[in-house]
């Protein structure tokens, strides 16, 4: 018999942040960034289900050219609810408030964020906004489309525009406070030795996102307030009938709106850098280029809003500038893709679920990014504008990109958050379903847009039916891919096998502490002497 003792199976630490305190007060009045992450996780998962169900009903309705289930009035409310919920109440929060809240202090070696009480306040503000919004939906809904274009939203719509925008208005302040909190945390709370260029790339992307939170969210707040002014007091701002300018609204909305889409994708890019590094056990190729590309994306994102408005009659010369800058913002995204791919060269590529999501992201985001060129080009945008091509493009970025990153991140850090593992085989299967279902759902929509089907159509000419049915079939696979993780994560949190501090053999401060971490994260402030991805030359320690 061998004398080498078998490694003893990992055990949960006796006291950790989840069991340090009990009772509902210990959760609802917590200032622990890790518990607040859980509060957000529950809230946004609920909102994701609301947004997902409305998408499911939309896809069902589109099986028939004349509409399978709903009158146009109801269908219009469904796509408006889907867009507003997913953008303002799920994607905006997803990675920053769940993974960001949980990880930023740990990754930089801090006990908590800079302003823990403000952090809790952010959650309450979000909950207030979400509650107002859900009540607005439940009492009739809103039918303006998520873009809320005027004068439709200010003068002509007779649905719950005021209460719904009120919900969004409130929730925006939660994001501003979160952004502020993260910026100060990253500047002031880094452990000794944690220099800017030793930071994990996730922190760089969260920093860039936080800056956009603080700069862009006030703009949408002002814009929504102007809608209320015109709707309630008939102050002529946007409605030409009252002396206003409807295009002014689009300038304001997209000045917020385009940075907003980078709020959604930048955090995901940060997560992918972590997934690729951990999945390859390798330093990210061209670290500083990836870090600076996040910052330059954030900067340029404020100067491209006019590419949503090529066909509004805006000056063609303004259009030229916006088109050129839109191409410019594509380049740092391409740089990231190439660097992630290069990281896999001569790596040790794991087939664990997080890496599968990373690989899926790289592929889908490549397609999402390249199809963006069709829309940044003014010539091609003329025909593709406001068709399903646009819908397909931004879902490749928002779902294929942002949600794949969020799910991948959840899978990587789930063992850290709960101390437990999930069933790997089920998780890989679900990742595969998400990838296949996603492509079946949104791939046909590129062709639908090319042949001319406008977006936001409740009924459509019969020749578009085949592609719509294909898309709906794909959506059913995608839905199953989303439900499975919901089930196994629940099981894992209660009964999953114990993970140990570092189940992936990954580098980074978060993997040096127990899973789940103690309330104060580190027993003593860590002294950082190496960069984030200091793999090798010695073997990795798994478990």
């Amino acid at each position: 018999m061998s004398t080498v003792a078998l490694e003893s199976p990992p055990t949960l630490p006796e006291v950790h942040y989840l069991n340090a305190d009990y009772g509902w007060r210990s959760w609802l009045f917590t200032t622990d960034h890790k518990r607040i992450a859980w509060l957000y996780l529950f809230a946004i998962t609920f909102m994701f289900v609301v947004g997902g169900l409305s998408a499911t009903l939309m896809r069902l309705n589109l099986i028939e050219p004349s509409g399978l289930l709903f009158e146009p009035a109801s269908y219009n409310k469904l796509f408006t609810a889907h867009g507003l919920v997913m953008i303002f109440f799920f994607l905006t929060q997803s990675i920053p408030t769940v993974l960001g809240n949980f990880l930023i202090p740990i990754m930089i070696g801090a006990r908590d964020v800079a302003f823990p009480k403000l952090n809790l306040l952010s959650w309450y503000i979000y909950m207030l906004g979400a509650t107002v919004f859900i009540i607005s939906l439940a009492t009739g809904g809103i039918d303006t489309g998520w873009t809320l274009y005027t004068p439709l939203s200010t003068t002509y719509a007779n649905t719950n525009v005021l209460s719904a925008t009120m919900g969004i208005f409130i929730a925006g302040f939660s994001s501003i406070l979160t952004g502020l909190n993260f910026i100060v945390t990253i500047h002031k709370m880094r452990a000794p030795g944690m220099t800017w260029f030793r930071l994990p790339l996730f922190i760089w992307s969260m920093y860039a996102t936080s800056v956009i939170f603080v700069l862009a969210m006030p703009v949408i707040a002002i814009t929504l307030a102007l809608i209320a002014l015109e709707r309630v007091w008939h102050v002529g701002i946007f409605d030409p009938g009252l002396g206003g300018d409807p295009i002014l609204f689009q300038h304001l909305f997209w000045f917020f709106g385009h940075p907003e889409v980078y709020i959604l994708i930048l955090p995901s890019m940060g997560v992918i850098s972590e997934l690729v590094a951990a999945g390859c056990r390798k330093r990210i190729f061209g670290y500083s280029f990836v870090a600076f590309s996040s910052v330059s994306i954030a900067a340029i994102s404020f100067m491209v809003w006019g590419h949503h408005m090529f066909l509004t009659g805006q000056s063609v010369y303004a259009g030229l500038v916006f088109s050129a800058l839109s191409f410019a913002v594509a380049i740092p995204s391409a740089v990231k893709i190439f660097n992630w791919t290069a990281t896999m060269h001569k790596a040790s590529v794991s087939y664990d679920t997080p890496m599968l999501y990373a690989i899926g992201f790289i592929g889908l985001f490549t397609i999402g990014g390249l199809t963006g060129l069709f829309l940044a080009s003014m010539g091609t945008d003329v025909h593709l504008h406001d068709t399903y091509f646009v819908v397909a493009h931004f879902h490749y970025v928002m779902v294929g990109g942002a949600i794949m990153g969020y799910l991948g991140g959840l899978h990587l850090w789930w063992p850290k958050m709960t101390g437990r593992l999930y069933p790997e085989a089920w998780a890989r299967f679900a990742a595969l379903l998400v990838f296949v279902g996603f492509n079946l759902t949104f791939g046909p929509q590129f062709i639908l847009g090319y042949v001319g089907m406008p977006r936001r159509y409740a009924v459509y000419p019969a020749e578009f039916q085949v592609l719509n049915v294909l898309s709906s079939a794909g959506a059913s696979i995608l839905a199953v891919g989303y439900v499975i993780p919901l089930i196994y994560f629940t099981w894992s949190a209660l009964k999953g096998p114990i993970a140990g501090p570092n189940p992936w053999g990954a580098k980074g401060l978060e993997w040096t502490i127990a899973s789940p971490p103690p309330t104060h994260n580190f027993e003593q402030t860590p002294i950082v002497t190496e960069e984030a991805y200091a793999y090798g030359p010695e073997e990795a320690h798994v478990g």
Partner: protein
Amino acid sequence: MWYGFPFHPEQASSIAPEWDYLFYFLTALTVFFSILIFGLVFYFAVKYRRREKNEVPPQNEGNLLLELGWTIIPAGICVFIFGWSSELFMRTQRAPAASTEVFVVGKQWMWKVQHPEGPREINQLHVPMGVPIKLTMTSEDVIHDFGVPAFRIKKDVVPGIYSTEWFTATKTGEYHLFCDQYCGMGHSHMRGTVVVMKPEEYERWLSGQMNVKPMAAEGERLFGQLGCNTCHPGEGKNSGPPLQGLFGSQVKLQDGKTVTADEGFIREAILGPQAVAGYPALMPTFQGQMNEEEVLDLVAYIKSLGPPAERKATKP
């Protein structure tokens, strides 16, 4: 060869084939880079798969030359696409001088079309083949968008301003007309048909429309009915500037600005008048007293009052 492809929109305008070339180029580019990235990712994932639980691969720092390469090459490609697509776009924005004019008013949820010769249509647009057609469009309420996939054209139809788009149809037939900008409850019903006819058939169709007054004649009637001729009579100096030869001329406003009197200016001048230099600001607004179709009729009447050459006096 693409005509047999089931997922291809019809090519029925002069711009459509050119549009499609650019689209095919971008599609080829997308396919090429997607296959490149997918291929590399899968190749690396298989070749460098983790073979032992604890293995750590050799590390490297990155490579400046590669970074520069994959920044500069995509940038070069982007500059090329930008040039190509912008040139195409600029051409789609400028209607040829000799275009046949048609006027469009969008309204929740229908398209109203007016031909200068008089015929009016709803959710239909009859046009002759081979002739450049210029649409001047506005909306009665919210923002709509006039898109014809077979022509690869699309333009927002915005209340309060005139927007224009143009096309030359190259194939007879009936084509979808879609409202592409979400405009409220009936958005997906705001559809119509563009009927492209041979020029001689089109002439027959035009003359076959019974009892219609040309737009300018209808405008003249409104001009009298609304009392415009009190201040803008045909002859002599009066409290309002003369309108003969106004269209296309340069007008100096009271505030010192000089503007070209195009359709949009005339519309503005009727609905929200700004005093013209040398005349008292007496004109009342007609906002709310007439609909966009009537405004278009008046514009057509004023346009019919002669070319700018006869009107040197107002030039600054």
